[in-house]
Every structure is written in structure tokens, then in C-alpha cells.
């Protein structure tokens, strides 16, 4: 539904899955190989309709599983195509071994993953355990707060993935149902602007380039250079921080919506800070702004980029803060170590001499709602920690029935 128009941005009210499908239509990838899974289904259904209606030139491969989806995506990307797919939860888990192959072969595949809990018990609702489980697969991971960001991240992902200093696959994360199935007011860029922004993909190596034939996926040999190739991947991940920022700035110039590694509220004067990612950031922001109005010296950071982990930048942003609460929508089951974001941040702060006190809140597993009341509870506890200088319980479960 079109609400209003200007030259570049068109304001619409659409669900998150449609926002992703629109981005895919505008990118017009050479190949999409995908398998439907709740709550990602609407993305590939809508996109398949676009293919059937001739709105894109994409070669759409309907496969029989996510394992095949990623396998086909890898083959097509190695052949030199610009490739996308999309998945969720168990589907991402079924892609497991291929995720490492995509990043190991340095194939710039772009994949929205609609965050959903992993079984058991079977649960179709949002948490981040699917993509957090894939955090060490060598994929870049960009989190989205709403449909707008999911759309913007998808378009930027293409440029980040294909950058010659990076050449890594990118996962775009959006919260299942909360973002994927709720209607959001957002702005779409016009097709020409997106096409110009993503440009044409010119692979350095491709299986279909007969004038410079190459072999992809060969045995590493008995001499073994696997170690060297993994070090290259780590270097590419390090390079990606600069590229993500540059692409975010450039995207801002065309859309009016610049992107960085994370964004913040009230960091200048805040004494303590809440960190969140995904849709929870909206709830946290709303409550943090209320609390700031009532005089509480609180701030927030919304983490957009989880892989690479922007450790240096976060450490700099948190310099001088008394206490930090990290919200994690998944657990690591590492026995009182907390969620993945907490573990990473705690590690990043190790060398800092005057580090803030840290507290972790695991919340929202299996789609458990994060209400403003819960954020308020965490904020007040955080204020207490900052005041007393003591963390009574490092890992807490917010919204758990206990």
C-alpha cells in the first residue's frame, strides 16, 4: 500500500517478509535456490511469484531441502552468479556443513535468516539461537530492528559480500513474526537507485569463465594449507569492518538512512547502558527514552553487526561507563557464562583497565515477549548495580516464570 511518494523513497506499509522480497526483486540476483520454512516461507513464496510473473531475470531453483538450497547456491556462486537464498531455524541448521563451505570458498552469497527458535521442543517463534549457533561459520551477520532495516541490510549486504577485500557470505537477521509478519511503515527505494547501488557483480574467479579456467573445492592436499586459508578468512572478516561502515555511509547518501556497526542513545551522559539487538532494540529504546526523561542516567546501544564483532568500537563507546546490561535472545548453555553477546563483550573488555560492571539478561526464548515492564525491571536493577558497584547475579533470565 503506497502512502506517499517522493523522488527516491516510496513510503509503504508492508510486512518484513515482503520488504525482503522487494529488496530481492530490486537486486535481481542471477540465481535463488530456496526451500520454504516458517516464518521465512513468505519471502520465497513472494519471490517465486515475482519470478513467475517475469518481474526478475532470476533463475529460481526450487530444491528439496535447505541442505540442497545452500549446495545449489554454492555451485551457482562458484559458477560466477550473484546468488541469494533465505532460511530460518531448522533450515539454517540443516545447511550447517554448507555454511562453512560457502565461506571457505569465499562465495559472496547473501541470505536473510528469519530468526526462530531451534527444536526441541518444537517452537516456531522468535529467538536468536539459530543464527547465534552459526556465529563461527565465517558468515557476516547483520541484525535488523524492523522491516526497514531488514530491507536496507539486504541491499547493503550485496555490496559488503562482493567487496574484493571481503568476499564473504552475509546473513541478514530479522526477528521471526515480530518483524517478518508484522506490518511496518517503511520506505522503499526506487528500482533504478537500488540497481545502481548494487551494481554488476564481476567475480574474479568463476567456473564458467572459459578463458581463465579454475577449480573450486579441490582437496587441500597432503601438504595441507588449510590453516593458511582459514587465516585468510579471518583477515577478510577484519577487513569487513571498514567495508561495512563505508557501505553504510554510501547507503545513507542515497537513502537518507546511514548505517554503522551499532547505534546508540544517550551515550554522552549515560552512566550505565543496555545493549540489545534485533527487534528488542525498539522496546529498549522506548523505555530508555522514558527513563532518561525522568532523569535516570541510562543509555543504550543497538548492535547491528555481530560478525565481525566490533570489539574495539564497543570498548571505546563504553569507556567510562559504570555498568552495562547485555540482552541476549539465546543461551550458550555454557554453565553460567551467559548468552553469546554477553560472552563476546565480556571478552572484548578484558584488557580495559577501568571496565564497567557487566550483567546479562537472557530473554525472549521461543518468542517469549519482552515487555517494557521487563526492560524497566532490568534498567532499575542496572541502576542498582551502577550505584552499589556490585553484580549480585551475573546471568539472569528476564521474563522466565520462576
Amino acid at each position, binding site marked *: 500500500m503506497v502512502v506517499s511518494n517522493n523522488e527516491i523513497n516510496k513510503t509503504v506499509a508492508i510486512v518484513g517478509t515482503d520488504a525482503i522480497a522487494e529488496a530481492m526483486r530490486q537486486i535481481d540476483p542471477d540465481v535463488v535456490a530456496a526451500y520454504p520454512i516458517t516464518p521465512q516461507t513468505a519471502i520465497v513464496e513472494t519471490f517465486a511469484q515475482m519470478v513467475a510473473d517475469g518481474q526478475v531475470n532470476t533463475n529460481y531453483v526450487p530444491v528439496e531441502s535447505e541442505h540442497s538450497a545452500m549446495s545449489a547456491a554454492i555451485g551457482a556462486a562458484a559458477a560466477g552468479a550473484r546468488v541469494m537464498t533465505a532460511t530460518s531455524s531448522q533450515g539454517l541448521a540443516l545447511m550447517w556443513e554448507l555454511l562453512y563451505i560457502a565461506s571457505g*570458498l*569465499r562465495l559472496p552469497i547473501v541470505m536473510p535468516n528469519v530468526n526462530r527458535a531451534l527444536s526441541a521442543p518444537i517452537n516456531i517463534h522468535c529467538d536468536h539461537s539459530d543464527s547465534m549457533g552459526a556465529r563461527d561459520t565465517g558468515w557476516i551477520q547483520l541484525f535488523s530492528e524492523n522491516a526497514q532495516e531488514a530491507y536496507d541490510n539486504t541491499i547493503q549486504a550485496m555490496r559488503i559480500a562482493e567487496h574484493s577485500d571481503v568476499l564473504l557470505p552475509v546473513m541478514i537477521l530479522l526477528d521471526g513474526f515480530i518483524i517478518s509478519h508484522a506490518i511496518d511503515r517503511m520506505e522503499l527505494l526506487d528500482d533504478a537507485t537500488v540497481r545502481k547501488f548494487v551494481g554488476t557483480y564481476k567475480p574474479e574467479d568463476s567456473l564458467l569463465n572459459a578463458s581463465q579456467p579454475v577449480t*573450486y573445492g579441490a582437496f587441500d592436499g597432503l601438504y595441507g594449507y588449510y590453516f593458511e586459508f582459514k587465516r585468510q578468512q579471518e583477515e577478510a572478516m577484519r577487513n569487513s569492518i571498514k567495508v561495512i561502515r563505508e557501505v553504510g555511509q554510501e547507503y545513507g547518501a542515497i537513502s537518507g538512512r546511514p548505517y554503522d556497526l551499532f547505534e546508540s542513545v544517550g551515550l554522552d551522559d549515560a552512566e550505565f547502558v543496555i545493549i540489545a539487538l534485533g527487534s528488542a532494540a525498539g522496546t529498549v529504546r522506548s523505555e530508555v527514552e522514558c527513563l532518561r526523561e525522568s532523569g535516570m542516567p541510562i543509555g543504550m546501544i543497538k548492535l547491528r553487526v555481530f560478525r565481525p564483532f566490533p570489539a574495539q568500537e564497543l570498548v571505546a563507546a563504553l569507556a567510562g561507563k559504570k555498568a552495562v546490561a547485555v540482552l541476549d535472545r539465546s543461551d550458550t548453555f555454557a554453565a553460567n557464562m551467559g548468552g553469546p553477546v554477553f560472552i563476546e563483550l565480556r571478552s572484548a573488555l578484558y584488557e580495559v583497565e577501568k571496565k564497567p560492571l557487566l550483567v546479562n539478561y537472557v530473554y525472549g526464548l521461543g518468542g517469549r515477549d519482552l515487555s517494557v515492564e521487563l526492560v524497566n525491571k532490568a534498567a532499575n536493577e542496572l541502576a542498582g548495580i551502577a550505584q552499589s558497584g556490585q553484580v549480585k547475579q551475573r546471568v539472569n533470565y528476564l521474563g522466565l516464570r520462576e
Partner: protein
Amino acid sequence: MSWDITDIKNWDWRKHPRGAVIRDPGSAKQFKTGGWRSARPIWDEEKCSQCLLCFVLCPDSAIKARDEKITTFDYDFCKGCGICAYECPRDAISMVDEAEARKKEESEEGGP
């Protein structure tokens, strides 16, 4: 594109082609795998009827033929699986212990 890998064991991690891509396809023949062999096929040309079954069935293309005739067994790549000896209808190929065969070779050459 020719690919000089003579010094590859000393390459810095940055020098390897990204994604372990091989820019010199067909270069697998530089990687001699015959060293894996523990049994060696010995071809008796006298008994051979040149049916070429072994040439067709060799999984490693290690049996060479020219003008419809077996010419040689390429021990740089033969892994000693014994399929050729098993399938030969004339028992013209026999499998011998590789270590023994090597010892014999060396004594014939007057080697160490």
C-alpha cells in the same frame, strides 16, 4: 595461467589464492599419488590379448594405451587397487608386494 608452486611449502598465508581456488586446472598430475601403493601390478605383455579391459576399468587412468594397445602402467599414479589384475581374463597382470618390488628394482639398479 601457469602456476609455479615449487616453493609452495614456504608460502606466506597471504600468497595462496583466495578460497583455495586452483587457477591452473589439470595440475593434479603434478601431485604424484603412486606412493600410496602397497601392491604393484606387473603386466605380462606375452599373455596379454589387448582386450583393454584394464585400461577401461582402472579408476586412476594409470594404465596407458595407444593405437588400441596397452603401452605402460604409470606407477606415478597407480595406487595398487588390483582391479586390473582381478578383471584380466588372461591372468596377464599379477599383483606383487610393493616393498619387495622396490627392493628388487634397487638391487637391479645397483642402488642403495
